[in-house]
């Protein structure tokens, strides 16, 4: 079975600070990796995804993530956060080529950005 660990449950930053949220997964095979974001009162939205190719992927709103296969990690980064980035961030994984597309989610990291 697959599992996802997000080490930071709550991160508090000031505007313009840099962000890095950790995500590690456990699975013996090849995976697809995702970061989803849930803004207050809104539905889960895809922030970025990694399927194959360049391990550094760029998503919406200036976010990027790097897949490091040897470390089973897919950390999310942003060089300068804004107040509007306040949200909950979820890392997720599924087995590549899965006929079923089931996602395994981490428990989430709540990001609070102070103006």
């Amino acid at each position, binding site marked *: 079975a697959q599992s*996802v660990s*997000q080490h930071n449950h709550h991160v508090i930053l000031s505007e313009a600070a840099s962000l890095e949220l950790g995500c590690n997964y456990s699975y013996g095979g090849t995976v*697809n990796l*995702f970061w*989803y974001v849930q803004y207050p009162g*809104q*539905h*889960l*939205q*895809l922030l970025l*995804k990694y399927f194959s190719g360049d391990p550094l992927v760029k998503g919406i709103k200036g976010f990027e993530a790097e897949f490091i296969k040897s470390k089973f990690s897919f950390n999310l980064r942003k060089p300068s956060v804004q107040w509007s980035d306040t949200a909950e961030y*979820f890392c*997720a994984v*599924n087995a*590549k*080529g*899965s*006929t*079923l*597309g*089931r*996602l*395994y*989610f*981490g*428990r*989430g990291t709540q990001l609070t950005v102070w103006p």
Partner: protein
Amino acid sequence: DAGVTQSPTHLIKTRGQQVTLRCSPKSGHDTVSWYQQALGQGPQFIFQYYEEEERQRGNFPDRFSGHQFPNYSSELNVNALLLGDSALYLCASSFRLAGTLANTGELFFGEGSRLTVL
């Protein structure tokens, strides 16, 4: 292009009752997955439907059942409600790659149905 729509948005039930939640997938999607998100937790997979059949199931009891209709919409039913069933229930849709059974794995979520069991 409508996204994933769910109804109702909020509901309150008492222990022992039954509840039905509904979901319409994003246009062009044929696969519906249901997730339970308890407070402070990430979404947990309940089950997935395509071609009107349950294809995979997570670690949830038989009290949780579902259905998919020919128009790809879906229902989640929970019987004999327990206090611990209080959660946000998320519907997510996706589509399978043409000519294969492989799912893209990229899910589009609805806003959820928040169930409170008293």
